[in-house]
């Protein structure tokens, strides 16, 4: 099974990279851009008997390592292949 964890900085945390990219996009002429935020996408292939089990495991990984709850939020998606 495969999980995709998307980790983004919390709304009130300064997104240095997102801001820099936004500036670059503007200077490249992409004037319609209002806001850019940069996060991580972590794809995990794992053995699990059910999507629910996979999800439980993935939440565990997020809490233990993948996400720093002080500054980051995450969302999770489980794909059966």
């Amino acid at each position: 099974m495969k999980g995709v964890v998307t980790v983004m900085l919390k709304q009130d945390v300064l997104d240095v990279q997102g801001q820099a990219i936004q500036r670059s996009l503007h200077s490249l002429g992409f004037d319609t851009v209002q806001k850019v935020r940069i996060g991580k996408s972590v794809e995990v292939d794992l053995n699990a008997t059910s999507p629910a089990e996979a999800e439980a495991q993935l939440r565990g990984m997020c809490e233990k390592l993948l996400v720093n709850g002080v500054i980051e939020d995450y969302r999770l998606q489980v794909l059966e292949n």
Partner: protein
Amino acid sequence: MAQTQRCAVLVFPGSNCDSDLLKAAQAIPGWNAEYVWHTTESLEGFDLILVPGGFSYGDYLRVGAMAARSPVMQALRKEAAHGVAVLGICNGFQILTEAGLLPGTLLPNRSLKFVCEVSPLEVANAQTAFSSRYTPGATIRVPVAHGAGNYFCDAQTLERLEANGQVVFRYAEGQNPNGSLNNIAGICNASGNVLGMMPHPERAMAEWMGSADGRALFESLQDALN
């Protein structure tokens, strides 16, 4: 009367200022410094724990994240709770925030570039175990070398840090290399026994290095431990 102090220099895969920190600690009379490997489960008997700079686990995922979860950090947490002095420098600071021993976090530098230079620091609190040898408000010269030293925390935390005098070092006005809040370069915990700082005092131990201003930090600790 000076007695011998046992001092641990933690080593994680990817630490690279461990030998510099060991050399600095060995230069302090009465200190007995040794490396401690990241899988070690107890730090009992150490009077001082030093968490070195470098790129533990390549700085992959988030700076300091993987190191913060190593066995030795569990042990460190225990000793810190008992009041043992802990000093985290650069990546060591990042590890301490990831481990929750210090508030806030270190974001990428505002320039998004690594920066290495000698930067002037202001001693914001000279009454800690780490800074007592400095003159309050003095400007000292200590090198920085980091890609993620941009200290960030929420407004309440910042207020608390400032009110409690937990901001120990600040970049001199107009010379902030990374965009950190309130020019913060180093902070300590509420009980004052854990300090994290981005600048490298171990790189400022003698004039030939360009500055000897880092020495007083270790000497302050020497006073506190005696």
